[in-house]
């Protein structure tokens, strides 16, 4: 069997390591706990729609979002937000977790750069999140939600756009976290910003113009438009928004990966 390139070896070893450690450290309780967020979001939306809206949405909502299916809209948004936040939590926090555990120095004296290491973490994170999102969507279906998919190619493009956007943002956030030496304030600030700007749970048209423009600087905003086209509006994937999501996501990834060595040396001044 041919020997895989070192980067693949490192990514696979990191995937395997993270899988083993997570299975050992966070059994089903973690999976159930994180899933509850999405299930409650869809469940509460269902109750609110029935109790307040009498099962119908306003015409302005349909005009802004391209769909009158509020629960479908919320389910896609909740699943995408879960994908985004959990992806960032796993990937962006990988290095600061190493720092806290006292293993960052041992990692940094090994030859591989950070890309294969983060790729391994990303592969693990997206695998775990795929399971969580699958269960979330299954729960939504039990509540009667039906998603408007425009087909597997669009679905794959939507996952690709969101995946690249999340990876890019995670790479930048990872550098910010190890320079700041903390994770919670940094991650929660970002989560607040993207929840506000990227159109996960309400149409961005409701935002002031300045915030709509600010949202265009965040890769998940264009990615969410791709996701909406593939799963909510039935309009399909917009090539322009796909290009924006991939371009911005890759730009963030390149910036983050170039910044990380500086951030790592900054962290090394303080500890191993």
């Amino acid at each position, binding site marked *: 069997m041919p020997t895989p390139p070192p980067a693949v070896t490192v990514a696979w070893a990191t995937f395997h390591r993270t899988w083993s450690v997570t299975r050992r450290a966070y059994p089903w309780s973690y999976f159930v706990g994180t899933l509850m967020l999405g299930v409650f979001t869809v469940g509460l939306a269902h109750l609110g729609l029935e109790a307040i809206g009498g099962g119908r949405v306003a015409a302005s909502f349909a005009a802004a979002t391209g769909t009158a299916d509020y629960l479908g809209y919320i389910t896609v948004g909740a699943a995408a937000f879960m994908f985004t936040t959990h992806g960032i939590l796993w990937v962006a926090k990988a290095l600061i977790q190493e720092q806290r555990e006292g293993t960052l120095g041992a990692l940094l004296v090994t030859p591989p750069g950070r890309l294969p290491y983060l790729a391994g973490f990303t592969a693990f994170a997206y695998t775990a999140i795929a399971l969580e999102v699958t269960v979330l969507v299954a729960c939504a279906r039990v509540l009667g939600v039906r998603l408007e998919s425009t087909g597997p190619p669009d679905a794959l493009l939507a996952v690709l756009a969101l995946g690249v956007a999340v990876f890019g943002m995670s790479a930048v956030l990872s550098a910010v976290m190890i320079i700041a030496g903390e994770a919670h304030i940094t991650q929660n600030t970002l989560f607040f910003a993207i929840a506000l700007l990227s159109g996960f749970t309400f149409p961005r048209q409701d935002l002031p113009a300045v915030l709509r423009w600010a949202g265009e600087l965040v890769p998940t905003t264009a990615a969410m438009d791709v996701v909406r086209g593939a799963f909510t509006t039935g309009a399909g994937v917009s090539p322009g928004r796909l290009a924006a999501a991939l371009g911005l996501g890759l730009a963030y990834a390149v910036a983050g990966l170039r910044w990380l060595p500086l951030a790592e*040396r900054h962290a090394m*001044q303080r500890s191993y």
Partner: protein
Amino acid sequence: MIRTDDLRKEFRTRRTTAVAVDGLTLEVPRGRVTGLLGLNGAGKTTTIKIMATLLHQTSGTVRVDELDPLRQPDAVRRRINLIAGGERMVYARMTGRENLWYFGRLYDVPRAVLRGRVEELLELVGLTAAADTTVERYSRGMAQRLSIARGLVNDPAYLLLDEPTLGLDAPIARDLRRLVARLAREGTGVLLTSHYLTEVEELCGHVYVIGEGRHVTAGSPAELTARAGCHRTVRIRLAERSPGVEAAVAAFAARLGTDAGLEPADDGGVVVSLSHPDDVAGPLAMAVVAAGGTLAGLEVAEPSLEDAILALADAPRLVTA
């Protein structure tokens, strides 16, 4: 060989610039344990971090077998490894075997080689029985031994040891010293910092002493003690007190320009002690005998590296961290 030339490292903040390493030139050849001892604000750890590619120097050069860590960090990392005492440097939620396997894969050690090497290293550090136990259930000493095995997983040409026995029990520290000595005999270049000076004296063929980031002195432990003008201490136990003998000892000490100590011994005798850079045991004993004294015992305490370091700097300035 690892070689630094005129190495300088500044840590800048908005208002201040702290110089951690200032013009340091040193060599770490293969097959020898080289010590790096530091006085206050010495910059030992900063120097090691620069050699390990974890930090960039402000100026000066580092070469590892002629490779530049700034331009060829990956190639340098394949030749070195780092073990830092007081830092776990292994994953708590992985077993000992999993840790070594993971780090081996990071170094791209082929699977077939790694399989055997992991078992060898586990045996070397006495963790074969605990190989499948997660590190969080290890004692501190066990985790440190695993960290040592991790530092050897890429079969490094150079091993950078930063206080490797910090906090270890005496038997484990002894085993580590034996291992380090063996590695050096087998050709590994070792750079060791330790505040246990007896450890440095036992292991190191050459020692650099630095203070406030600057070179203070260098040499073998024996050369350092000789250069520092450290005194040997001669202690002669006399069977009984004798004013004549005490006068003779005092006169002998006066001729050498020093003082002699006289302390009563438990058995009713007296202990004469005299410190001097030269070996004066024989002449002192002859002076005692010539004055009618009877020698009940004689010992000479050779100066240690610790004496030399203390002579080079005030004791309170000696770095202990």
